[in-house]
């Protein structure tokens, strides 16, 4: 191997990398909020006793979960503008694509959390005259939310890692920046390794956090 390792290239390019990190974080947070919103709607649809609503929500969740995210991203970037006739900036397409892509998993997490509340507790709420909304707000969600936090954080980590795919539609996230700089400087090992380490440094604390919450939840049982 005649490659001389030169870590200083990372330091020389830190401004560019920092911009990439910024885009990655913005993408992760915005898309996660979108995924929560779409996921909540889909989950409520899935829990609805209305048959048509239930089927549409089910079909959406299954379709989103069983198609590759890359295909969804590229489709939204190239095909959606043709169909609806407006040009969509890459960043916008990326946010929509990631939101939709992760919303299937989020929907299943929310649905699972709500379904995990024993029926008897819901009957007890009915039996003292609670309305369905009060039952949801006071009995189901406070408990379901606690159950949902660890899997939702995991879902956030999955989304954070998935943002690296948006480089394919030319959104200047961390991965895109690292790739471009590697090409410009002929230093792929340093820059791509740096990118990997940065992703790890963002994701790992969240994973640790999840583990802590889960351990605490188990010790209560």
């Amino acid at each position: 191997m005649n490659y001389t390792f030169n870590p200083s290239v990372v330091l020389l390019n830190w401004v560019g990398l920092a911009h990439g990190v910024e885009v990655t974080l913005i993408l992760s947070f915005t898309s996660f909020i979108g995924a929560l919103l779409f996921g909540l709607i889909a989950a409520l649809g899935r829990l609805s006793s209305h048959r048509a609503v239930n089927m549409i929500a089910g079909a959406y969740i299954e379709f989103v979960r069983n198609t590759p995210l890359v295909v969804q991203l590229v489709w939204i970037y190239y095909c959606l503008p043709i169909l609806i006739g407006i040009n969509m900036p890459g960043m916008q397409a990326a946010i929509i694509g990631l939101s939709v892509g992760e919303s299937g998993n989020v929907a299943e997490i929310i649905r699972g959390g709500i379904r995990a509340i024993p029926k008897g507790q819901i009957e007890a709420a009915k039996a003292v005259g609670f309305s369905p909304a009060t039952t949801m707000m006071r009995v189901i969600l406070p408990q379901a939310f606690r159950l949902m936090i660890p899997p939702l954080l995991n879902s956030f980590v999955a989304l954070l890692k998935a943002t690296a795919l948006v480089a394919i539609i030319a959104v200047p996230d961390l991965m895109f920046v690292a790739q471009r700089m590697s090409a410009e400087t002929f230093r792929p090992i340093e820059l791509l390794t740096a990118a990997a380490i940065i992703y790890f440094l963002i994701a790992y604390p969240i994973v640790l956090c999840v583990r802590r919450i889960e351990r605490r939840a188990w010790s209560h049982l």
Partner: protein
Amino acid sequence: MSNRHSRELLRVEALEKRFGTLSVLRQVDLSIDRGEVVSIVGSSGSGKSTLLRCLNLLEEPSGGRIIFDGRVVAERANDAAALKLDKDYPPSRLRMDVGMVFQQFNLWPHMSVIGNVAAPLRFSRKVPIREAEERAEAMLAKVGLSHKIREMPSRLSGGQQQRVAIARALVMQPRAMLFDEVTSALDPELVGEVLEVLRELAGEGMTMVMVTHEMQFAREVSDRVAFMDGGVVAEIGPPEQLFVDPQQARTRTFLARYLATTR
């Protein structure tokens, strides 16, 4: 039309309940007077719990009428017809007046004991939190749990949890109470403390309908005992009649089988 002077508080007429093709209640008629304690006995699958759950509309009847305090709260001509409810007195309102306690306690584990008991007042009757907690505390004192009000339900014994559940229903000041096998999930040594609360309540004149396997207790506190079999009330009468001199052959068979298993 509400009639506070009539003796009758709760009545079902020709009540039917089907789950798919399975007929669980067939043309049940039952009337309960104010202050009356009625126990429902029978083997499992006889429709006891379903009947009880129809009384506060946790189950929607497939046919028949339910009348509470002179008001038709639910009526359905047949399966094809829609269930007709009283718009001025919907099921959620009925349930504030007809409390229910379940076999599995069904406390809300994320709320403290006092939180569980105050919640119905706060969220159904819209009582301010401070007043709700004061009234909850008084009710918990009544069931002998003053020392446990800040505990979480999971820290209590089964008997204590069931007493919290009773306090949670009573705090609404219901006009009738439904008890669905409330001692069946308890260890034998914890049954007594719950029955004691029920006995006291009966003594105070509360209208009570209870599904129970505690024959001795039913005999002691009930004004009438109903024996259900195959989705109908096969026999109903004062406990001394039903337990000592049952008129129906199937009541005798049930009691004989019951005595054989408990002896």
